[in-house]
């Protein structure tokens, strides 16, 4: 009974937070400089007509009318029409969501594999941990944009590599701490003292103890990955959601921006629900 209730509460909270995220985006964009500009103004041929049209539309520029338009777009299922591209937002998002999802999945998978492969042996070491962890500390100190630039310049790697390095650098630190605490548990120390093989210890003690605590880390990983999606997609010109959000930001394309913010908020929310569900199942 507790498990479905917790999931339902979390889902309701996520939906409310998504509504707040959408409202916040509308407010920010509505008051952003350049929101009222129209590219047709630059063309003398259209300037007068565009200005007259904008003047006529001015009644529809209030926050309430923007909110109504946004909600009616959601109800139609197309999320409104893109101001920049003149097509339904759902079309734009549908074409890009697969690209971003694939990139995220590959980056997260490779990053976690990389972090686990490094953290497991380093956590079992008795000396030289700091030295072995140094590459990850250095990676943590390099901004994502600099990593992407380095990849582009050296013509080595690509967005997946940068994603995986960002994730690995961040998760290695947490994984190492988690595994270190598992290795220093009294029963594991006793097992080591008895000469139990490392693989047996890993299988029966370390992995079962550490696994439930990995779920919140996965959630954090997803949030980190979503955060770096924009710079990576922009710098590598990957036609995904991050690049779409970037173009929408630069062009004050409100319907697209609201849709991408909602996507981001829902991804974070779903990751949170996943983490809560895993914890509730474990408690049960």
């Amino acid at each position, binding site marked *: 009974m507790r498990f479905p209730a917790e999931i339902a509460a979390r889902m309701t909270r996520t939906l409310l*937070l998504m509504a*707040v995220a959408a409202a916040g985006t509308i407010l920010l964009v509505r008051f952003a400089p350049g929101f009222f500009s129209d590219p047709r103004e630059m063309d003398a041929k259209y300037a007068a007509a565009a200005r007259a049209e904008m003047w006529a539309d001015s009644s529809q520029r209030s926050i309430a009318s923007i909110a109504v338009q946004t909600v009616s777009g959601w109800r139609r299922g197309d999320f409104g029409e893109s101001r920049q591209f003149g097509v339904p937002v759902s079309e734009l998002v549908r074409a890009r969501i697969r690209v971003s999802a694939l990139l995220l999945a590959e980056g997260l998978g490779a990053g976690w594999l990389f972090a686990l492969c490094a953290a497991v042996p380093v956590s079992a070491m008795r000396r030289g941990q700091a030295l072995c962890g140094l590459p990850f500390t250095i990676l943590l*100190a390099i*901004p994502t944009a600099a990593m992407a630039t380095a990849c582009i*310049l050296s013509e080595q790697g690509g967005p997946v590599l940068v994603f995986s390095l960002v994730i690995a650098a961040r998760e290695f630190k947490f994984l190492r701490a988690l595994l270190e605490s598992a290795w220093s548990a009294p029963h594991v120390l006793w097992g080591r003292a008895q000469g139990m093989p490392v693989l047996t210890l890993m299988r029966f003690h370390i992995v079962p103890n550490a696994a439930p605590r990995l779920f919140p880390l996965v959630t954090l990983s997803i949030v980190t990955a979503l*955060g770096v999606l924009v710079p990576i997609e922009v710098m590598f010109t990957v036609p995904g959601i991050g690049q779409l959000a970037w173009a929408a930001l630069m062009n004050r394309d409100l319907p697209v921006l609201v849709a991408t913010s909602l996507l981001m908020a829902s991804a*974070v929310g779903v990751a949170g629900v996943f983490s809560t569900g895993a914890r509730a199942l474990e408690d049960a």
Partner: protein
Amino acid sequence: MKVRISFVLLLLLLASAALTLRFMPFDYASQDRTATMAAASAEHPAGTDALGRDRVVRVSAALLIGIGGAVGAAGITTMIAAAFGLLAAFSPAPAAALLLFVSDAFLSVPWLFLLMIARSLLPLTASPLATAVTTFLVLAFLGWPAFGRAVYGGTRSMLSAEWMIQGRATGLRDGQLIRLHLLPHLSSFLVPQFLICVPAFIVAEANLGALGLGVGEPMPSWGGMLLELENSAMIARSHWVYLPIALLVVVLLILESFTTEVKSHA
């Protein structure tokens, strides 16, 4: 010991940056059009950029602006988080729930994405100083939610401590309890959080700057200087173009060592 070495290194870096700005015959914006993309020379020890601006001077200025801005922003974030956490902890349950919902609303969108939205929707064509202030203020005002929640959790757990109950029993008011008891106890928690924020803000500024959303030209910043790396002609001419990123990594490693040390003592 390690933290002392890091501290001395950081002070040396800051002092040398300040001395460079004081004694070099150029400022960060002055251009030498006869020496654009120049290699290292006696006049320009680390060469010049595409506009003939001295790289050592610009890196020195970026170091001071980056660290100064990040420290200031981290200070503001710490204050906001402390105020938020204390306010929520001392509020009645419905008000506390509402405040926590507000912090969750900020956390519902990834931080870097939120930063980009907020920064790009603020004026980009302002004076360089205004863009620098705006960038660091955006970092400060969006950096507090997770930290504020942690302060709230810490304060809630302290409210039931014996020394708090005794403080209440002796007639201390909420303000006095906060000033005399809670803040001194929370400092062991606030200081590491502040130290975590400083490198995080430096990296965030660098990421924003690399997308053209950071500090405006000609004021130098880590992010702005990373953009130089996109100029392949410049890279072919001089390896000094890597100086900003190398120095940034060194500074972040020094700051990371502070954080590790303080966290281990907390």
